[in-house]
Structure formats: structure tokens, C-alpha cells
């Protein structure tokens, strides 16, 4: 893989196309789906609004106009940075997203950090722990974690640390402290696939012939593990970790409900529940942009981990590239291993 300025621009344009198509698709789906908060307000059995009055309301929101007019108005406003108002609660969509994103970003960053830490601890213990029984036990952890629902982990943490020990408030925002339990809950779930992929990567890398060469060349085991095996074995896991950012930003709905946080997951849940079109559209577009950007960045990060994907003076050096180790003794063997990584990366993506 190589990146020329032209290919980078092409990748960016692809990303823009994805975002535009997402907008059109989501807008269409929302338009075609029956029901919206305005209609629910009109039909609310606790306060049904008669037809003549309902007409005013639909006209106010432009919901009585044909689809192309509604679409044109929406796109026109979008270019002015105006995502409109929530049809349900009257808040500006940009305010809701800003509030949700602020809450969620802090949570996601901490959760991502914990995810990386948990995954690396689990994977390194599973592959390199000196006791076989411990390795086997740890290898099963990701499966257990994957099969445990988030809300259960969250409720257990709340039961112990909030209700019993009283260390945390279950309902109030206590700033940074409030982030810890939900971040642990999120990381417990998110670290499992990362750890699994990392275990596979480390297994494979540690079985490569270059390890034997390094070992026979007198390298210290720690140096082999952390400097060479870890670097070569972690590329797929880093890709996955990159994608996890998107997941953490958007997939926190349940955790936020359990911990009573009003992040993006909460905003999304409320909007989807009431089919609040402008808010759903805003959130989906934000997520689309984040995913696309993170994907792009992850792609552009490979050269940092795998130098053979760097372009040096217009010459492609795939498969025989610049080694990250300066030691000529290992160079040849590592190059051989590089092919495997490229192939693996291709399949992972």
C-alpha cells in the first residue's frame, strides 16, 4: 500500500461521498417511515388535537409540503450550519449534539484508554504468562466478556460501588468521577474483540521464524516481546481499536441509560424513540463523519507501524521495505514476516 497526495485526496473524496450518500439515505428513510413527534403530539391520547388545528401545526413544521421541498429546505439549512430544532422538545439539534458529544467524548476517551489497557494486559498475559493454566483461563476471558451484557456489568458496578459502598452517585453528575464506572463498563465489553485479535496477532508473530533468529542472536526475551513481536502482532488490533472509537462514541446508549448520563447515546435513544427526524439525522451524520474520518486516519496510520507502506521518494518498497529495527541481523527475517502482516491486514479490513 502506498499513499501519494493524489491517492490521499481520492480517499478523502471517497469519504465525502460516503457522508453525502448517508445523508440522502437517512433522510429518505426518515421521510418514508410513518410517525414523527409532531404527529405523536397531535394524536396523543392525553390531548388529541383536532384536524383543523393539526393543519397549522404541520404547516409550521413544513411537514405538509412535498418531499423535494422538505429536502431542499433541509439541505439549504445544512449548508448554513443549521441542523434545525428537535421536533419533540424544541431544543436546537446543534445544542443537543454538542451537549451529548461533550459528555460522550470524555467518556469515550477514558473508555478507549481503558479498552487498550485491558486488551493489552489480557492479550499479553494470555500469550506470554509463564503458567499454562493462567494462559488458558485468560484466553477465555474475552468470550465471557463478550457474552455478558453491558447493562449487567453496569448494574453490578452500581450495586457495589454506588448503592452499597456509596463511593459514587448513581444519579448525579460528579464530573470526572462520574466517568469511571461507565468507562469501565464500556471498556469491559469493548476490550474483548480487541484482546482476541491481539492474542491472535501475538500468537502468530511469536511463532514467526524471525523470533527464533532474534532469540538465537541473543536478544533479551523482553526486548523480543515488546519491541518486535508486539509491534508486528498488534497492527490488526490497532485497526480494531480505531473502529472501537466510533463504537464507543455511538454505542453507549445502554451504558448511558444505566448510569443516567445524557451523552450522545442518550440523545440518540430519545430521538429514535420518538422518531425525531432532525435529531436522528444530525446524530447519524455526526457518526458517519466520525467513522469515515477515523477509517481514513487509521489507514493513514499504517505507515507508522509498517514502514514498508511508506513511500520513499516515489519508490514502492512493499515487501522489502525499511525495517523498524536498525539491526541488520534481523532485517531479512523481518521483511519476510512483513508479507504476512500485509496479507493479514488486507483480510482484517
Amino acid at each position: 500500500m502506498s499513499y501519494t497526495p493524489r491517492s490521499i485526496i481520492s480517499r478523502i473524496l471517497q469519504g465525502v461521498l460516503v457522508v453525502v450518500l448517508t445523508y440522502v439515505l437517512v433522510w429518505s428513510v426518515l421521510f418514508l417511515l410513518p410517525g414523527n413527534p409532531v404527529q405523536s403530539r397531535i394524536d396523543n391520547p392525553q390531548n388529541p388535537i383536532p384536524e383543523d388545528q393539526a393543519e397549522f401545526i404541520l404547516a409550521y413544521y413544513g411537514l405538509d409540503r412535498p418531499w423535494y421541498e422538505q429536502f431542499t429546505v433541509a439541505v439549504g439549512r445544512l449548508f448554513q450550519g443549521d441542523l434545525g430544532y428537535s421536533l419533540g422538545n424544541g431544543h436546537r439539534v446543534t445544542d443537543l449534539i454538542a451537549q451529548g458529544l461533550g459528555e460522550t467524548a470524555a467518556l469515550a476517551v477514558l473508555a478507549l484508554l481503558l479498552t487498550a489497557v485491558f486488551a493489552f494486559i489480557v492479550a499479553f498475559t494470555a500469550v506470554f504468562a509463564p503458567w499454562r493454566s493462567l494462559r488458558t483461563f485468560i484466553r477465555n476471558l474475552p468470550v465471557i466478556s463478550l457474552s455478558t451484557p453491558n447493562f449487567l456489568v453496569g448494574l453490578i458496578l452500581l450495586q457495589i460501588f454506588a448503592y452499597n459502598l456509596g463511593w459514587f452517585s448513581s444519579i448525579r453528575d460528579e464530573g470526572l468521577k462520574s466517568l469511571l464506572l461507565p468507562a469501565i463498563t464500556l471498556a469491559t465489553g469493548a476490550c474483548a474483540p480487541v484482546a482476541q485479535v491481539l492474542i491472535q496477532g501475538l500468537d502468530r508473530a511469536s511463532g514467526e521464524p524471525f523470533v527464533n533468529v532474534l532469540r538465537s542472536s541473543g536478544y533479551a526475551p523482553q526486548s523480543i516481546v515488546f519491541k518486535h513481536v508486539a509491534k508486528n502482532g498488534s497492527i490488526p488490533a490497532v485497526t480494531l481499536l480505531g473502529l472501537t472509537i466510533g463504537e464507543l462514541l455511538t454505542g453507549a446508549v445502554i451504558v448511558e441509560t444505566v448510569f443516567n448520563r445524557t451523552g450522545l447515546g442518550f440523545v440518540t435513544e430519545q430521538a429514535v424513540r420518538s422518531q425525531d427526524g432532525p435529531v436522528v439525522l444530525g446524530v447519524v451524520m455526526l457518526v458517519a463523519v466520525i467513522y469515515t474520518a477515523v477509517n481514513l486516519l487509521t489507514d493513514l496510520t499504517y505507515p507508522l507501524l509498517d514502514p514498508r507502506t511508506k513511500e520513499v521518494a516515489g519508490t514502492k518498497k512493499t515487501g522489502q521495505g525499511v525495517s523498524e529495527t536498525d539491526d541488520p541481523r534481523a532485517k531479512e527475517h523481518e521483511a519476510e514476516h512483513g508479507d504476512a502482516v500485509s496479507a493479514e491486514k488486507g483480510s482484517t479490513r
Partner: protein
Amino acid sequence: MARAPFLFPARDKTARAALAGLLPAALLLTSCAAGAAAGGDGEVQEGGELVYLDAELSSNTQLQSSGTWQDSAYITNITDRLIYKNPETGELEPYLAEEFDVSDDGLTYTFTIVEGVTHSDGTPVDVENVKRNLEWQHDGDPDQGIPANNWFPSIESIETDDSAQTVIVQLEEPYAPFLDVLSFWRTSIVADATIEAPIEEQQQLAGIIGSGPFYVESETYGEEIILAKREGYDWAPPSSPHQGEALLDTITILPVTEDSVRLGSLRSGEADLIRYLQPSEEQGLIDAGIDIVSEQGSGNANVWDVRQSAPFIDDVDVRRALQSGIDREQIIEDLYTDSWRPAKSVVTEDTFGFEDKSDSLVYDPERSNELLDGAGFEEFDSEGYRIDENGERLSLLTYIDVFDATAGPLFQLIQLQLAEIGVELRIEETDYSSYSEVIQDPEIATRRNGWPEADPWVRQTVNYTLDEANALFLEEDDSAAQELDALYHQQLVQTDPAERQETLADIQEILVDEAFLLPILDDSQVFGVQPHVEDLAFTAEARPFFYSTWIDH
């Protein structure tokens, strides 16, 4: 119910005393649930914060278009109304209108406005402000997408007299429920600034400026609402035992939608009050030392509309078989607690015009079987359901109500009970946002309806008359439909309470005896309250009112 008829001026003590004698004892039983949390031994203590966990978050507080329970409860605490409906007696009493008078022909209403009242933004509650509120309620604001209050009568004119402090409302025709409507939270008096604000602002509680005992200090969407005591508040309804400023400094309202978290936070002492408990959770909380307060709102009972567009149920015998095939006692026993009661009519017992129809609601499966045999469903299919002569199964479709959190188990139990008489009830489910659209399907046989209301008969008029919602899907040429229509319209204009009561009795006879509605139970709002919370009060429609509430430190 037994609330004072609407035509007597508040100052007419004789009339009011006479009317008080008409109150059924039931009213007194139902309206004092607050007492469960009240009556501490200690002195009333001022100050402090009440932490209230609501089961849902504020969604839309725009007065004419809002309908959610939680929003109505918040609005009640930050605003006042012209008329006070005494929850203990059901009487209509002075509030912002220190006197109110109705002409003999029922067309002219004169309200004398209390002097010196201000909204929390400092603007006065004067005759002009009241007039503007009434016009706004009556007309809505079409340019802003704000509908008219469709509980309002047709108004010919509204005039004010500054020197006499009076607002005179001239109706086009008499309207029996008008004073009740004015006592309801939807007709709360708000500041001019609120009326002028865009709908998006009014949809948020902070956009509602009123003269109530609390005001909105801050609101963070989905996170918290803080209501603070209004300094200098001194215009509570004269009959309120507490006068002057509210006792609590602040009320922190936190929406906690996850049931287990709400319960856990109450048990751990983080919260003082939570709304909404599953009936199965009550005993656990009582064991943990929490008080359970159940408040039954006056108004419509929890009923099932039987919709005439669906197959089979245009036959009155089939409908009657359903009526006697539902065991209401068992429903309460199996699914609910003492906080709930089987319905005795289509309205709650404390509602004006209530007729006890218990005899028509007795569980009698034998009668149901006879009726269904006679209606041509004598044969059964292999699954034990009745079939007609064409072999078609007697099967009815319904959707679980999304507004009633106890609906799931309730529907399932009724499904079992109807299966006993050979009727299949097919229960479908949809999400909150699609419900109102899905429920339009004429194939749906029954729909849960009925909510607390200042005057349930206005609501029923909107729901069941042909020219409005026609929720029973009646055909125009149906004689029962025409009769119901005529009765509903008649009761609206009947200025003599006794006459109106007769009309309402006729309405109940048609609805219950011809089984157009299946009354199920009288709903309750159930709260979990810490024992240190004293004098929690409720409005007649079961909204919590924190004005006299205090915390025993």
C-alpha cells in the same frame, strides 16, 4: 363526582355548603392518599432540597399541545390557575380569581382577579394578562404552530374592567365544564413573555413563566431541572392549609428512566421521592422503610375502547360477552396492589356524574358463554377458540398501550381470561413513535384509553363523538352513535347540574351496558417516598404539588 357544580359563585356560601353535603364518601377515601406521607410529629421545617426522580424526562411543556404526565406535574408547581379544584372536596374554589360568578343563563362568566400577584419575571398578573391568556388558550397561535385549547368553549368576547379588577367572558353558548377546565393545569396562567415566545422556547420548562410557588432556576436537557422557591409568594388558594412561601428551598428533578436505578437510588437514600413503581416492587420498598403513596386521579377510568370497525364486535352480544368475561378483581389481585381498584364505570368514583355500574361489570363467564353461543359462535376449533358458521375464529386484535407502563401484563391477563370464554385476543406491540399511526388500523378491536382529567366528559366528547375523534369507529347512521352524540353535546350545555347528571347517567348506560367501553380499573400514580418527606400533596388530577411539602431534618 361530587364536586361542586359549576354555576355557583365561590362566595355563595350557602350553595356551596349545600353542595358539600352531596359529596359521596368515596371522594374522601380517594383524595387523601397524601396523608400516607404526611402527618409527621415534628414542627414544620423550612428549607432544604427535595430530590425527585421522575420516570420520564420533560419533553414538551407548551401548554395547549403538551400531554405528558411529567410535564403537567412540573407546570402545576410553577404556575397558578384562575380556579382551584380542592382535591379533598372536589369543590371549585377561588385562586387567582378571588371571586367568580356565572350568570343565570350560563353565558357570562365574571372573574375578579386577586391584586398584587406577579409572575416570576416580575410582570403583573392583572386583568389584561388574564384576558390575553384566555384569548391565547381559545385561539392558539397558528403562526407559531400552537393549537387552540380544544377543551375551551366558543367565546364571543372577553372584556376587562381595570377598576373592578374583573375579566368578563361572554360565551356563545353555555358550557358546563368551563370552570373545571379553568382549574386544569393546561389552563395555567402564564406571563406575556411566554405567550410571545416561539414554540421551541415554550416547549422547554424554563420557557414557562408563571406565578406559582416555584420557578425554574435551571434546566439541563435530560439531566436535571431545578425548581426554586418563589420569594414573596403569597397567593395560594384561600382553602390551602399552608399559606405564604413554599417550604422547600429547591426541588431537584432528575429524570431516571431505568427502573432499577430509580429504585436503587431511593433505597440508598440518594433520592427523596420517585415516581412510578411496578406493582411488584411495592412490598420490597415498604420492607426497606420507604412509604408508598398512591394517588388516584379523578377523571376517566382505565378503559378499553371497543372499535366498531373491527370484525365480530359490531354484535352487541359479543361485546357484552367481553364485558362479563373480564375478571377485574383477579386483575387487581394478581397484577396490582391495594393502590389500585377495579373500575365501577367509565369514570372514577369521585367524578361528577359517576354512576355505579358495578352490576354490569360482574365477572360472569357463564353469561359470556351463553351470549357467544347465542351470537353464532357455538363451535370451537382445535385450539379451543370459538368459530362462527363459516369456521372463522372469534379473534380480536389489540396493541399494547405505550403510555401505560403496566399495560403488558394487564393485556396478557385479559388475553388469558378471554381465552377461557373461547375468544382469542391477539396482542401486538409497537414502539412509542409508531403507536399513534399503527392504532389507526380499523382492524384493531380494542384500545386502552382513559386518563385523569378535570372534566372527563369533555374528553369523552372529544374522543367519542362522530364529528371529533370518533374513537369507537361508529358509523354515522348507527342509532347508538347518534344517541351518544346527542347526549354528549347536550351535557356540555346543561347548566342545571341535576339535569346534566341525568344525561351523564344515560351516557354511562350506553357505554357500559352496550359494552362500547370495557372499564378495567381506576388508575393510580404510585410514588415511593422517604419517611422524612412530609405533607406531599396532590392536585385533583393526581399531580404532585410540592407547595406545602417539607423535609423533616
